[in-house]
Structures are given as C-alpha cells and as structure tokens.
C-alpha cells in the first residue's frame, strides 16, 4: 500500500510536468488540442494525488507502523479520528496535504474555465502545474510520507522493521481547533496561486484590463477568508493553551501566516481602484506576486527550521529549494512586469487627497508597512546572524509599537473611506458626513475618561470603534431608506435585499463591522491579564 501511494505520487508528478510543458507548447504552436491534453493531465494528476492521499489515510487508519510517518505520529491507542488527522501531524504527511490542496485547486480552475479565456488558460495551467510540480518534487524526494522504517544492525545490514507501537500524536495537537487549523490555513495559503496564475497569464497575453481581477475575485475572497479564519483559530487555540502568549505571540510561524493576509487585504482593496478607475495596474500585479510569494515564504519558514519557533516542526533540508524557487518566481515575475509596463499604464491620475482612491492608497500603504515591520522583526535573527554572528530576536514590544498605531489608523480609514467620494470630496460634504458619527464617538471617549480610563491607545481605539460603527450603520440606513422608497418593501426585508444585491459594498461593510468587533475585543482584552 505504501508503494502504491508513492507510485501514485510519482505518476502525478509526471502528469503535472507534462501539463506544464504541453500547455506552453500548445500555446506557442497555437494548437488547441495540445492545450486540452495538458488540462486533462492536470485533472489526472489531481486524481493521482487523491489516490495517494487515500493510501496514506488507509495506512494511518490501519496503524501500519512499517511506514515512518505512521509510526512517528500515531500509536495504537489513538482514536481513529486523530489517527487520520495525524496526516498533518508530522512534516511529511503535511506536505502531502499541501500538494493535495494545490492539486484540487488547480483542477477546479481548469474545470471552471474549460470554455472560457482560451487565450489565457494555457499560461494559467502552466503556472499552476509549475507550482504543483515544485511541491510534488519536494514531497516525493525530500519528504516522502511513504518512507518505510529500516533498522541498521550491528553487523551493518539493513532490515525493514515495524515497531509494536508508534510514538503517538503530541498531546498539544489533540484539540479540535488544532485539528482543523492546519487544513484551513493551507486553503488560505495555497489559494493565492490562482490570482497569481491569472496575473501572469494576463501579463504574458497582454490582457491587462481587469479581466484577470474579475475572474479571480471569488478565489481571492475565499482564500482570504480561510486565511483569516485560520489565523483566528490559531489565536483561539493559543489562548486556551497557557504559556503561548495569550492569543498572539508574534511567533515567527504566526507572523508568516499574517503577512500574506496583510498583503491579501491590501490587494482586495486596491483591485477596487483598478476596476473603478483603471489605476494602480502595476501595483496590483506586484501585490498579487508578493502575496503568492509570501505564502510560499510562510511555508518555507515553518518547514526549513531557519527560524526558531515554538511551532517549528522540522529542521529539514528543504530550505534551499524554497529559496531558489522563490527567487526564480520573483525574478521571472519582475521581468514580465517590467517588460509589459506600457500595457500597465494608469488610465487616470490622483485628483485629490480627499478622495476614495487616496483612502484606498493609504490603506495599502499602512498594510504594506505593517507587513514589512512583521517581516523585519521575524527575519532579524537570520539577518543579525549573517551580519554579526549572533541571533538577535525581537519580541512583542517591537511588533506592538508599530502594529497598534497602524491598526488604529486602519480602523480610522475603515470609517472615513466610505465617506469619501471618488475623485474629490468637498470639505462641506465631508463635514456633514462626519458630524453624525463624531458625536457618539466623542461621547464614548468622554464617558471612558470620566470612568477613569487613561490608556491613550485604548481610548482612541474605543472612540474609533464607535465612530466606525456609526458610519456603517449610517450607510445601511441610507441605502435601506432609498430602497424602501423605491420598492415599498418593509425595512428589514429591504436591508437584507440591499445587501444581497450589492454584496461587494454591503458585504464589505459587514466584514468591516466584524473587524470593529474584533478591535473592541482586542482592546478590552488588553486590560485582562491573569497572573499567578
């Protein structure tokens, strides 16, 4: 069974490599049938990996301890559920899970677009297969979960052996949130390869309007959602497990999943500017490349052991391959972008600082500065070791000193962004729009001051939370009132329909509302410290 599993993986690699070369060949020769065969190879590769996954699950369920991964992460007394979840309990199996999700996503993209974008799809498939092949090569040759255990006897001979019982699953991992946290995070990391692939295809085929953005919007949203949920679950689990610094410790592995989320959030906002105003075209392709690379970087940090972390699983030789891959992708993408610069010219310029474009730009600036700060703090030990020979680490005070002001400024933008008009907002209309939300916000501030709160950041945070809450409520109120007048529906129904018919805008407001709630919780939690 382990041989079967390994064989399926090898077959999948051959198929994905074929897919890579055939789709490029078919595009260059303009032979539709070759491209089609590449797409079918991509789907077949996905099937191969599925079989391989099923094989490993079978080995785990039947406790076949001759296989290294099974012996390493399960034992006989483990409940079946945890035996299966142990698939991602150790390095090799988690690599297979990563490959599986990548393959499934690639397959879905191929199927979704089998009648569309025929000019871009060969390149999309090529990028997806390039990504898949890289991880398959790592999985097969460097972290193969189907490796069998051998024992070297004193006389130098090697024998396969199968222990009576395995080592078992780390008790810290036997917790519901911990079980679903890695798969959800993987969905969040891996999904960004899809907008990336479409961006590269758009660059190659010189179709740099917003086709590539619109077609991948749902992918980006869902990926971002999973990444966010994964982050929150991790925080929930860390909070429950004492000693992991509360809900967030600025640990390198935590940070590595935060970084693509930050740039992903920036990307979600900046594409709106491109779709509405034809601006920020270069920025958007750059941002999607960065987000994809940060996802790879995240898994690189976790798996290479380059940075010490309470999360660190392995000290493996994978590191240098990741580096080469990232450099290759970065170099190739930058070359493409620079070469296609004429096609990425902005259609409009920034008219005023008091505009929605400007607010989005500022949002992006803040998120990218935050990402850079997190990157700097996370990688500093590696840098200082290189330069000075000792590892210097930085802790929460550094990250918080930058992160809290940025978070509060972003919160502020969340409130004022919708109040700004596109192109230019008159000061008069701003004054009118600000008045309603300012009043309750100031009341909150005064009430808190009167009740004794003196912490500057907390006061600002709660005040802003109120401010944003009112701006969101105001938007819903205005929109619903117009709808009621036009359709005669009752208020509640009108609000629901308004949201469903304008998901981009009002769905966005719902997300902003949840962010406000998170800020309230985070700020309140800063007062709640348990000490012994």
């Amino acid at each position, binding site marked *: 069974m382990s041989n079967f599993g390994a064989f399926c993986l090898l077959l999948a690699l051959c198929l994905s490599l074929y897919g890579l070369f055939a789709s490029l060949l078919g595009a260059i020769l303009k032979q539709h049938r070759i491209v089609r065969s590449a797409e079918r190879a991509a789907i077949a590769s996905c099937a191969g990996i599925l079989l391989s996954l099923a094989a490993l699950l079978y080995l785990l369920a039947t406790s076949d301890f001759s296989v290294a991964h099974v*012996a390493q992460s399960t034992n006989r007394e483990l409940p079946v559920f945890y035996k299966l979840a142990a698939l991602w309990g150790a390095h090799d199996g988690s690599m297979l899970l990563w490959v599986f999700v990548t393959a499934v996503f690639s397959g879905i993209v191929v199927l979704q677009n089998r009648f569309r974008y025929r000019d871009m799809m060969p390149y999309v498939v090529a990028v997806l297969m390039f990504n898949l092949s890289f991880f398959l090569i790592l999985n097969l040759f460097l972290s193969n979960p189907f490796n069998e255990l051998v024992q070297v006897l004193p006389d130098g001979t090697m024998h396969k052996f199968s222990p009576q019982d395995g*080592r078992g699953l*780390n008790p810290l991992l036997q917790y519901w949130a911990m079980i679903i946290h890695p798969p959800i995070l993987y969905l969040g990391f891996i999904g960004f390869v899809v907008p990336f692939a479409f961006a590269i295809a758009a660059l190659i085929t010189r179709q740099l309007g917003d086709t590539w953005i619109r077609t991948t919007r749902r992918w980006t949203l869902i990926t971002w959602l999973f990444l966010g949920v994964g982050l929150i679950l991790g925080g929930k689990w860390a909070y429950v*497990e004492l000693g992991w610094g509360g809900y967030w410790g600025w640990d390198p592995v935590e940070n590595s999943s935060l970084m693509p989320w930050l740039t992903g959030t920036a990307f979600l906002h900046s594409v709106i500017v491109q779709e509405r105003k034809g601006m920020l075209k270069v920025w958007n392709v750059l941002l999607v490349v960065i987000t994809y690379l940060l996802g790879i970087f995240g898994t690189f940090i976790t798996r290479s052991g380059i940075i*010490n972390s309470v999360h660190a699983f392995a000290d493996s030789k994978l590191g240098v391959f990741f580096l080469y891959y990232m450099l290759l992708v970065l170099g190739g993408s930058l070359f493409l972008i620079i070469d296609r610069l004429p096609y990425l010219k902005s259609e409009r310029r920034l008219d005023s600082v008091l505009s929605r474009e*400007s607010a989005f730009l500022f949002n992006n600036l803040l998120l990218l500065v935050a990402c850079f700060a997190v990157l700097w703090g996370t990688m500093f030990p590696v840098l200082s070791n290189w330069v000075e020979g000792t590892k210097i680490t*930085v802790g929460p005070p550094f*990250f918080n000193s*930058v992160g809290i002001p940025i978070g509060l400024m972003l919160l502020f933008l969340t409130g004022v962004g919708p109040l700004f008009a596109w192109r230019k907002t008159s000061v008069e209309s701003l004054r009118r729009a600000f008045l309603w939300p300012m009043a309750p916000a100031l009341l909150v501030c005064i009430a808190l001051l009167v009740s004794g709160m003196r912490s500057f950041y907390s006061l600002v945070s709660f005040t802003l939370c109120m401010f944003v809450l009112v701006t969101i409520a105001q938007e819903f109120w205005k929109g619903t009132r117009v709808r009621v007048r036009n359709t005669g529906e009752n208020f509640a129904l009108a609000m629901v329909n308004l949201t469903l018919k304008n998901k981009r805008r009002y769905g966005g407001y719902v997300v902003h509302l949840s962010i406000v709630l998170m800020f309230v919780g985070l700020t309140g939690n800063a007062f709640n410290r348990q000490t*012994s």
Partner: protein
Amino acid sequence: MSSANWKFLLGGAVVVAALSWLGFVGFQESKSYYITVDEFSAMKNDLQGKTLKIAGDVVEGSIERSGPGLEFVITHSGKNLKVRYVGRDVLPDTFKGGSKAVVEGTLSEDGVLLARHIEAKCASKYEAEYNKKTT
C-alpha cells in the same frame, strides 16, 4: 507630478517616519540575544546588562519552587545554567523536567539568570525509542 500626488507622498512619508521611530524604540526595548547554554558560558563576560534568550533542556528534577519563586537548571551540550523565574505570567503546560525551554531575562550578579519569560516545547515523549521488532 500633480499636487495631489505630492500631498499624498508627503503625508505618507510623515506617517512612515513616525512609525519607523516608534518601531525603532520598540526594537531597542525588546531585542534580546538568542543563544544556547554552551554559547552563553563561552560569552559570559560580554553579556552583562543585555537581555538574553537562552535555549536549553530543563534538567530533570531541578525544578524547585521556593515560595512565590521558582528555580531550575537548564543544560545544553554539557554546560548548565541556573535560572530564577521572576516573571508574573502563568507557566506553560509544557514546562517540566526534560522539556526544551527558551528562557528570556538578564544576568544577575551571582551568575543566575533572572528569567522574565519562559517558553517550553514538548520534547521527551517524542524521542522515545521504538520497540524493536524486525519483520
């Protein structure tokens, strides 16, 4: 470049500068040297007054609770270091004899590390020997 672009860049530069300054202050406050116990004993003289993060294994049976305080010994590659915990957080579940620990604090005059923060990783159970049985 248009006036709006200039204004944006100026505003952006001011914000970035302010954040950089805040970051620099936060950096200096929280930076610590990450070394193992044996590297520590080699460098002992240069490290007075600096914040240290020392990694090692907790020696079995060395954990002593004396009143509100806690003392233990960590070891790595043959070198030992006595640690006195002066922090106020609850200790991690994983902190016990034999676990890998990273201890952050400063050196006291009597050569003991005054730890303000302890992180611990589960180790021992997962290095257990397999029951050998050939097939």
